[in-house]
């Protein structure tokens, strides 16, 4: 916690990333003939962002703070 990029700012960047990925999802759904693979990849990316930065998955294999 603390450090240079403040946690608030990381949260903001992640939120921006989620919005961007959502925009790409909609674009993929409208542009591609079979959007399922692209949607799956984008969905995994979004879930990964939330898991890692919002849910702190890394805490699981870190020592007690």
């Amino acid at each position, binding site marked *: *916690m603390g450090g240079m990029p403040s*946690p*608030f700012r990381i*949260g*903001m960047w*992640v*939120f921006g990333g*989620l*919005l961007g990925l*959502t925009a790409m*999802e*909609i674009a*993929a*759904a409208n542009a591609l003939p*079979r*959007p*399922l693979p692209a*949607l799956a990849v*984008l*969905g995994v990316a*979004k*879930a990964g962002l*939330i*898991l890692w*930065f*919002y*849910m702190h998955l890394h*805490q*699981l294999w870190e020592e*007690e703070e």
Partner: protein
Amino acid sequence: MSALREGHAIAVPLRVPRFGLWLFLLSESMIFATLLSARFILQGTYRPAELNQALGLAITLILLTSSFTANRAEIAIAHGKTSTFLRNLLATIILGILFLIGVVAVEWPEAMHFAPPSSGYGTVFFTMTGMHAAHVFSGVVILSLIYRLGRRGAFGPGRMWGVEGAVKYWHFVDIVWVFFYPALYLVR
């Protein structure tokens, strides 16, 4: 005896309940994985043209924003900023309620013409959104309890497991929608 038991409860390090919560979420995710698979097994990538795309996008953005505010609330309490914490938590609860209104009060009545007894897509659509909405609802209830405790000053840096757990659950509900939204509204 009871002192011993309480002492035991306090001595448990934070990673124990944290691990337990992750296991619970892992288990829960199997429910949604099954429903997601059922959607593709039964209906392939079929999607009715008359789904309200604007509404689907709107509730998706609402839920993503709520995850953002939930994250801010968690960081704020970790830094001891109680008022920022409460403000963001309240925003999260309100966004959650807005999401529920969007699904149950707006989307469902519009989708009634493909409601279960008539169409196969309705079966998966209503079950998936319903199951997810039930989890959003329970998340709103939990966050409200946390808000109530937070106003009484129950949390602060180093004693915020309640907040952390509730917020993790909320993010989990958001992740479910991350997969449900494209599966219900975007695939073809």
